[in-house]
């Protein structure tokens, strides 16, 4: 029914006729997603490291909880955030509903468990190697966490990218809390959903290819950063 050349042609057409509208959508996608990933890392990295490095009562429960929350359904998160931010909800006074801020909140809730759970695993493995040394040197708790996070930084980049992947591809939650408002909260995934519902399937697929390309660029940039940091470290 559809030929790949048609879709690729449409995708190239999009890039050639790149207009303000499209760059607005792409920039908002990146802004929302990267903000959510940065905030998730600020919460998830220390949280995951603490759970990974220390033994405490309820640690197993926290681990199960984090692993479960990795599978949070985006639509459910969208609904919960909507009910919180609605004018009739407890946080309605903030007037965040139908703004990019609401979308960042929803995606942060989705991404934080992923960052925390994966960080926990990375740090736990590393801690196995370091534990005796820490003990013999009498390293304090805070220094242990920072040392572990710092030494695991290259693996943690991949953790952040996993979170980025979840956020950038997500449509259910941002559709509900953002409202897919033109020029305000319309991002790549909600545009794809909208064009699909208009029956413009080639355009929707072309936008999908564009989204994929942007994800490739972000991943490549992070990997390049990592490679140059590794080189600098051993230079």
């Amino acid at each position, binding site marked *: 029914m559809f030929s790949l050349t048609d879709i690729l042609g449409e995708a190239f057409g999009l890039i050639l006729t790149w207009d303000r509208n499209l760059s607005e959508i792409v920039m908002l996608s990146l*802004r929302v997603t*990267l*903000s959510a990933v*940065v905030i998730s890392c600020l919460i998830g990295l220390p949280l995951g490291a603490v759970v990974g490095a220390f033994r405490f009562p309820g640690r197993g429960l926290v681990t199960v909880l984090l692993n479960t929350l990795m599978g949070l359904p985006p639509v459910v998160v969208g609904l919960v955030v909507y009910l919180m931010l*609605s*004018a*009739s*909800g407890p946080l*309605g006074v903030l*007037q965040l*509903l*139908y*703004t*990019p*801020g609401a979308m960042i909140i929803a995606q942060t809730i989705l991404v934080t468990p992923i960052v925390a759970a994966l960080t926990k695993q990375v740090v736990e493995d590393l801690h196995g190697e370091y534990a005796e040394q820490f003990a013999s040197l009498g390293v304090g708790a805070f220094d242990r966490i920072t040392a572990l996070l*710092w030494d695991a*930084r290259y693996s943690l980049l991949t953790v952040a990218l996993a979170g980025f992947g979840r956020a950038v591809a997500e449509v259910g939650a941002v559709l509900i809390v953002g*409202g*897919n*408002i*033109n020029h*305000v909260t319309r991002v790549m995934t909600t545009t794809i959903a*909208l064009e*699909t*519902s*208009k*029956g*413009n*399937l080639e355009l929707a697929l072309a936008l999908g290819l564009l989204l994929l390309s942007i994800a490739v660029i972000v991943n490549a940039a992070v990997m390049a950063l990592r490679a140059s*940091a590794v080189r*600098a*470290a051993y230079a």
Partner: protein
Amino acid sequence: MIRRHFLSLAASILLALGLTGTAQAEDGFIVVQSTTSTQNSGLFDHILPIFTDKTGIEVRVVAVGTGQAIKNAANGDGDVLFVHAKPAEEKFVAQGHGLARSDVMYNDFVIVGPPADPAGVAGMSDVVAALGKIAEAEAPFASRGDDSGTNKAELRLWGAAGIDVRAASGDWYRETGSGMGATLNTGTAMGAYIMTDRATWIAFGNKGDYKVAVEGDAKMFNQYGIILVNPEMHKNVKAELGQTFIDWVLSDEGQSAIAGYKVDGQQLFFPNAG
């Protein structure tokens, strides 16, 4: 050294995020809870820039099914409600969530079907009789099933035909539970009859070999109404800006902007305010 490098990078990212967050502080906008048919047909893209140029008020449209739009507005998440399900709209006003309701425009529903026409309804104008034949033939029928304005109208017509579609749900009667466009995509792919508003159908880009089978019955009249969300019930409602928008939509200028929207030379909505 490297650690400092990383920290300054993280700091600059945060700074950049913080700066972009302040871009939208102005208050000159309203939120309109509306339906997918007005959005997907392109009507808003046509009329809203005219209004914004004139008044400087930005209109942010949240396009969902009528059922969801009404619930969102009842939560106070919107200044204006612009939908098409008169009984539900009147209930919304009666419950105190909205002020007066005004007629804005109408179009009509049609039933589209596959060229094979398994129920033999092509060319009929009596919608109740046509639905009866579809049920009798047990020909696939794709329903929105999402409590939208179109879904409510469709269920009223099944009721008039005396057919209990719930009993056939999952069999020949298939509820997609999604928007008009998604239901058209699904329905055309499964060879089902689909009831759709004419505006969405004309603007729809994935018709395949489908054609309008049933049209022209007065029962398929589709009236759109506009309501200001009650500012006394919901304090955050921008009553003045919202009323400005409603007044404009109902004015000669707004009405002729609606009449002037055409796709492939066909007028999609017919203004009938006042």
